[in-house]
């Protein structure tokens, strides 16, 4: 029997700050196999990948053995330089953020050629062009001479895969290769990766994605491998709690699409537009858009970054006047909503709380606009508000730096709620949260809509997550708001890469 392509035994990684990234990790990747390493952020999956590739800092302590099929030596015993020369030919590497993987000053061609140049081989231009054309890059010959910023993320990631598999490595290691891409591009990129590699070991936090593209799945939690099995087994009969949590996080039940309820309109827009001056010309951020939000419903807007959805949100919240069109709040056209009737939740919860203020002061600030309140009363009200958002155990006298990101976001929600708003607007409210916390946050928002009848207008790029709570999903592309097309309605339609 042939030895496995890569074999890791009892791998332990300790960072200089004492954090243990991997504890007794043991697994193997066989020739021709695709293996997924799945877990939450911080579980040690990237650490494991990097220790195989030799990318951890010199002061990080690594013990255990790592063997590569045709080398009869534990690579951990080699000196760094020897090791890099040895592993670079046998292990391919594909990184997370396609733009980050490219030196902005060098052409894409330079990066695709680099693995060959480093091994002292002469790259063949025609061959490279053919390889790129094969993974679906149009006009590859010209495009090789362009710089990374002139490419789209999806194309760059495919070029990274071509570069990473140039030397036909035994195993291609990929670190969250699709996390920076839209969902429909992710499948395509992972298929390309599989097709070009002899064996694949990829890291992801998305169990569903892993199941679709891997033969075997390893689930990691707090530095250890807690579950291992074929994709089908892990997906159907998860044994470990962590696997179940990841499964719940990746397979999301979309909420049923609802028509607008017959409750009063809390905010509506008709024909609003917004333009910005940019350099020489003007950029139309929002084309004429119509929209109405009713009490108690959650309206979501999804779209890629730069599509104008945040601008639309700022107009609906009254923070930015539209160039044309009208906005009404509570059925009355005016320059802005009544103070406190529309409240925001921001993307970065930590920066949305004043670090010098105790929680009670931040939370009850909206109340001080109309009333004078004593400190004791404000603390009492803050405690009530904290209870409403599920963190009643927190001390209102605490400071923001004692909170986790998720707790800080709940405090921000408490501050929004205390003003008794008719509408809450949230721009990417889960962007800085990990998968589980994000889910809990979405559940909280849904609960607030159901229990308190607060309407919500939420903007996100995460269609699946927002889809679990939104009554209606609108899509926005290049400034066009499409109110009719709910992405959940035709999720199974053929996918196309936007050019």
């Amino acid at each position: 029997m042939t030895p496995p392509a890569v074999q890791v035994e009892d791998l332990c990684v300790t960072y200089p700050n004492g954090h243990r990234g991997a504890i007794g990790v043991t697994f193997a990747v066989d020739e021709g196999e695709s293996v997924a390493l799945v877990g939450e952020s911080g579980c040690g999956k990237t650490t494991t990948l990097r220790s195989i590739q030799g990318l951890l800092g010199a002061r990080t302590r690594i013990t255990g053995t790592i063997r590569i099929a045709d080398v009869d030596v534990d690579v951990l015993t080699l000196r760094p330089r020897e090791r890099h020369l040895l592993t670079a030919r046998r292990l391919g590497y594909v990184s997370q953020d396609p733009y980050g993987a490219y030196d902005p000053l060098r052409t894409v061609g330079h990066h695709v050629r680099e693995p060959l140049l480093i091994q002292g081989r002469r790259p063949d231009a025609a061959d490279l062009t053919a390889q790129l054309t094969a993974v679906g890059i149009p006009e590859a010959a010209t495009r090789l001479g362009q710089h990374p910023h002139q490419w789209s993320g999806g194309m760059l990631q495919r070029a990274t895969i071509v570069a990473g598999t140039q030397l036909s490595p035994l195993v291609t290691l990929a670190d969250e290769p699709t996390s920076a891409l839209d969902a429909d591009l992710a499948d395509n990129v992972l298929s390309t990766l599989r097709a070009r590699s002899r064996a694949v070991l990829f890291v992801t936090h998305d169990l569903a994605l892993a199941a679709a593209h891997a033969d075997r799945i390893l689930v990691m939690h707090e530095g250890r491998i807690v579950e291992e099995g074929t994709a089908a087994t892990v997906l159907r009969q998860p044994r470990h709690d962590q696997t179940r949590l990841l499964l719940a996080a990746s397979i999301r039940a979309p909420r049923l699409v609802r028509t607008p309820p017959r409750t009063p309109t809390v905010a509506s827009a008709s024909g609003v537009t917004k333009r910005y001056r940019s350099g020489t010309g003007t950029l139309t951020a929002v084309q004429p858009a119509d929209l109405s939000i009713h009490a108690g419903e959650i309206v979501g807007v999804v779209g890629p970054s730069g599509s104008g959805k945040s601008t639309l949100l700022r107009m609906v919240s009254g923070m930015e006047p539209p160039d044309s069109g009208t906005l009404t709040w509570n059925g009355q056209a005016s320059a802005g909503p009544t103070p406190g009737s529309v409240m925001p939740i921001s993307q970065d919860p930590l920066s949305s709380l004043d670090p010098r203020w105790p929680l009670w002061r931040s939370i009850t600030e909206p109340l001080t606009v109309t009333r004078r309140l004593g400190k004791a009363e404000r603390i009492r009200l803050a405690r009530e508000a904290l209870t409403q958002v599920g963190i009643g155990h927190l001390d209102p006298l605490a400071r923001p730096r004692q909170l986790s990101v998720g707790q800080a976001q709940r405090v921000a929600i408490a501050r929004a709620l205390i003003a008794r708003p008719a509408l809450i607007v949230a721009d990417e409210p889960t962007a800085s949260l990990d998968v589980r916390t994000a889910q809990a946050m979405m559940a909280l928002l849904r609960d607030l809509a159901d229990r308190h009848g607060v309407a919500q207008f939420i903007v996100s790029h995460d269609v699946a997550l927002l889809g679990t709570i939104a009554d209606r999903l609108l899509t926005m592309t290049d400034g066009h708001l499409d109110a009719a097309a709910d992405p959940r309605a035709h999720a199974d339609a053929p996918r196309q890469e936007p050019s």
Partner: protein
Amino acid sequence: MSAMTTDAAPAERGSHAGLVHRLLHHRGFVTGLVGVLILLTVALVGPLLVGDPDLTRFTQQLTPPSAAFPLGTDSAGRDVMARTVYGARVSLLAALVVFAITTTLGIGVGVTAALAGGRIDAFLCRCCDVMLGLPSLVMALAIVGALGPGLINLVVAMSITGWAGLAKLCRTLALDCRHRGDVIAARMAGVSPARIAVGHILPSVLIYGLISATLGLGETVLGLAGMSFLGLGVQPPTAEWGSMLNASRIDLAVAPWLLIGPGLGLVLVVTSVTLISDALRDCADLKELS
């Protein structure tokens, strides 16, 4: 190369209480602080312990360091130790005054521009750009050239040339604050702009503005001493480190000890200030701002 762990642990941020705690555990900061305390003690208490810095002794010119004169005497027979101690007062006070004026001007102009917006903002920005587009030491030379040599004129010159960078920074800080979650929430809740400015924006701009102002303090001390060395600052016979070093030039061949007092003093000031400002920058995570 760093650990890729972004778990839900409490986040460390540039908050006030956290900053003080981190600073007190920063070796560079503590060292610098000790240096500053020594200097302040010398400047405040020292004059009580030494003799008259301007007393000339024609019988004891250029004597090497001895028990009576630990740092020797200069060409007029004056006690170099006494002159160094008195010189500390002038050098430190001048640096502090320049620091106070540039910081006040910088933060004031920056915050005013950001909060006022419109034409006032555009005008103040243009002023800053012109000031930043000019070499500061040369401008200081020109201003002293216009006003004439002298300590007060020198302080004025250094103050006028030193505020623009800080003003730009504070303007950016204040503008960024307006997009911060707490400010947006306060605005939408109907909190008045004045209360937002005082409660949310000013405190954070003040802290970061002060910290980044200290980054230029070492340069200020060096600039002041350099101009005094050229004879454009303190006029004789007042003791000041820069001018003392200049005076020592003539007798350097026979009396190298003249360099010790003012030289060590200057190095101690700049070292302490640099250590403190570097520590502040590291601890407050100002890297992206400086």
